[in-house]
């Protein structure tokens, strides 16, 4: 099986494709494939030319930390829970997330996700919920990995400068649900950086590894 990877040595250098041969186990995940290729004294591409180790990020290796987000056969996904046997076609094509600056190979700088939440003061402050709390939806929304897959797939999200995307909307919901005195302030930044521009394609929900129903957060925020 051929594995085609879009590589880039430095943030400012040009990207280029490199193809590797994978002959490891079929029940491996894409994370396992990357590990397999990297685990050699000398790494060579499919033509036998020596090359460098492939940069990619991981931590939990079981789909709960969001490190390994990348684009696999055109679809934004977590490498550690995307399995070779489930992929269509006989080859694999991997590229880094496109909406974030590349640091090296498949590693991108996703710090804008946290920075946007910082800039807009998305924190609870004092815990003052209004009335009956919806624990189940709060629980689900709080599972957000901040992996960036929802932003990668979103037609409205460009580079996080004005429109902040689904990860932002869910955190807005959490704050306004837990501190009603902040709801108004949150409503404003939510409208400015999400509500007014979301075209409801809802592709974010298709790719969310935690299956967060962002539409439910949006409905609650719009109600306010």
């Amino acid at each position, binding site marked *: 099986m051929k594995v085609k990877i879009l590589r880039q040595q430095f943030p400012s250098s040009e990207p280029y494709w490199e193809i590797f041969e994978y002959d490891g186990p079929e029940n491996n995940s894409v994370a396992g494939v990357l590990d397999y290729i990297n685990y050699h004294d000398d790494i060579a591409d499919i033509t036998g030319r020596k090359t460098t*180790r492939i940069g990619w990020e991981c*931590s939990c*290796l079981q*789909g*709960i930390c969001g490190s390994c987000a990348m684009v696999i056969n055109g679809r934004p996904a977590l490498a550690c829970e995307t399995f070779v046997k489930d992929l269509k076609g006989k080859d694999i094509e991997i590229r880094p997330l496109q909406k974030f600056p590349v640091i090296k190979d498949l590693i991108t700088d996703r710090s804008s996700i946290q920075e946007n939440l910082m800039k807009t003061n998305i924190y609870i402050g004092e815990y003052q919920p209004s009335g009956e709390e919806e624990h189940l939806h709060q629980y689900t929304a*709080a599972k957000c990995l*901040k992996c960036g897959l929802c932003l990668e797939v979103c037609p409205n999200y460009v580079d996080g400068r004005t429109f902040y995307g689904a990860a932002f909307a869910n955190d807005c919901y959490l704050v306004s649900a837990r501190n009603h005195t902040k709801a108004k302030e949150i409503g404003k930044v939510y409208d400015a950086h999400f509500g007014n521009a979301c075209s409801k394609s809802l592709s974010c929900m298709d790719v969310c590894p935690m299956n967060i129903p962002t539409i439910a957060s949006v409905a609650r925020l719009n109600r306010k």
Partner: protein
Amino acid sequence: MKDVIVIGSGIAGMSCAVRCAQMGVHVTLVSPFPSERSQSVMAAGGINAVLPEPEEGDSIASHIADTLKGSGYLAGEKAVTGLCEGAGGIIAFLERIGTVFSRDASGRPMRRAFGGQSHKRTYYCGASTGKQIVSALVMEVRRFEAAGLIERKLRCCFHSALIRDGACYGALLFDETSWQLISLCADALVIATGGQNALFGKTTGSTQCDGYAAGRLFMQGAVLKNLEFIQYHPTTLETPQKKMLVSEAARGEGGRLFYLENGRRVYFMEDKFGPGGNLMTRDVVSREICRTGKEVFLDVSFLGRKAIDERLPEVRDLCARYRGIDIAKDPIPVVPSVHFFMGGLAVHLNHETSIRDLFAIGECASMYHGANRLGGNSLLAALYSGFVAAEEIAARPGKESWPDFSGDLKREEAALKLGMSSESSFPVMYIRDMLAETMRDHLGIVRSEESLAKGLEEIDYYLSVAERIRYDSSVLPYFNYSITGILTIARATLQCARARTESRGAHIRSDYPETDPGRQFATLVSFDQGGCRVWLDKEHIYES
């Protein structure tokens, strides 16, 4: 204003940062990745506490007693008492910052049974307790970031501590953005870097936890403690990726362990220990699985699909996704795997290490778990230890002056440059893999003098090579410079295991199968001219 550097932004690092900020202490929170990527998000099962209206008969005293017993009586009583008494306040804090605990119909947080505990006292957030706590803490940290009291430094790794005459004045960090070493002074340095997972390659936990910080600090004079006590979790699922944890909740909910003999199921834990056998402490269950010498299974199918969907969804998903097993129909094949490190940096009750103003908290510190940790106690310890360290730091007078460390910075810069200056033909990643093989072979569940000695020989060889190899330029410099610290802590771990000539808790010796009452003390180890000095803490220095 006082300045503190906290290395590591998992639950322990964040709890310390928040508590410092609450008291007006400025924190620089350092980690290579955001908190969402830390191992803390992986904790599924729950956190222990005895709250008002406990299960009938439960009390804080019995939480203390269970923890001490589970620890093989190696955990300090004063420390454990503080931990268990502080648990109620910790849960209240977590609720206040918005942690979504699972609740019963009347709105009270729900609890489940966990191994080695006389009562149900493990509170949980669905199937993702750690993640829910991290999400809440991240928001709370953000609140203090906005107030200018916490400053996160991402894409930054610990390099070494700035130490002079037995006191710590800050740290050298490697900044991955500028590819440079930076020197940062502070009134105190707090280490919260998690366990030593990388010694064993892939464990149930995060690949980010490698033990480097503890190893490097050991080389800089910090005393380490109880390294030989490594928790093998009895139930993990083998996948091509790694061994994945099948939460203790599966046995807490009634799951039964068995092996097959002539087509018949043998429920070996129940046969030996009675009806509660499946929920014995992890050291005991792992040892018994190992003794069967057979393929062991965990059965939860009899709970029925509805109960499984409600109470064990993460176990259901994990088995289905990574192995195609339907746990409502079939038993889960399980093997023990390295999961948690009871040992680490030796700390006093206030979480200060043997070096003044250098603190350690969370899994990288050795304090509350002795020879074996109870499930649900480490999230508690991560939060509690962060608070304790913060309160101690806030109460101390700040430093008045700092020595000049520019020479240290220059020396380390030169060493890094030398290492990175050539192409490698023997990459450092390869040594990491060989180390993991050595550790798995010689520091398994059951150990012996012969095997430990062999392991030491291998590590000595890697160390001799590590001094000479050139860095692999295609991986981050951190992977390269960290290798000596990692190998050194591995070596100290084998030395500690060799010195403990008895079996206790998670440390089982085939050549010394009995527990020796004369050794009911913590192991301490210090770095001594390239070698290790190992002794028992008979004076209880690290319990005061």
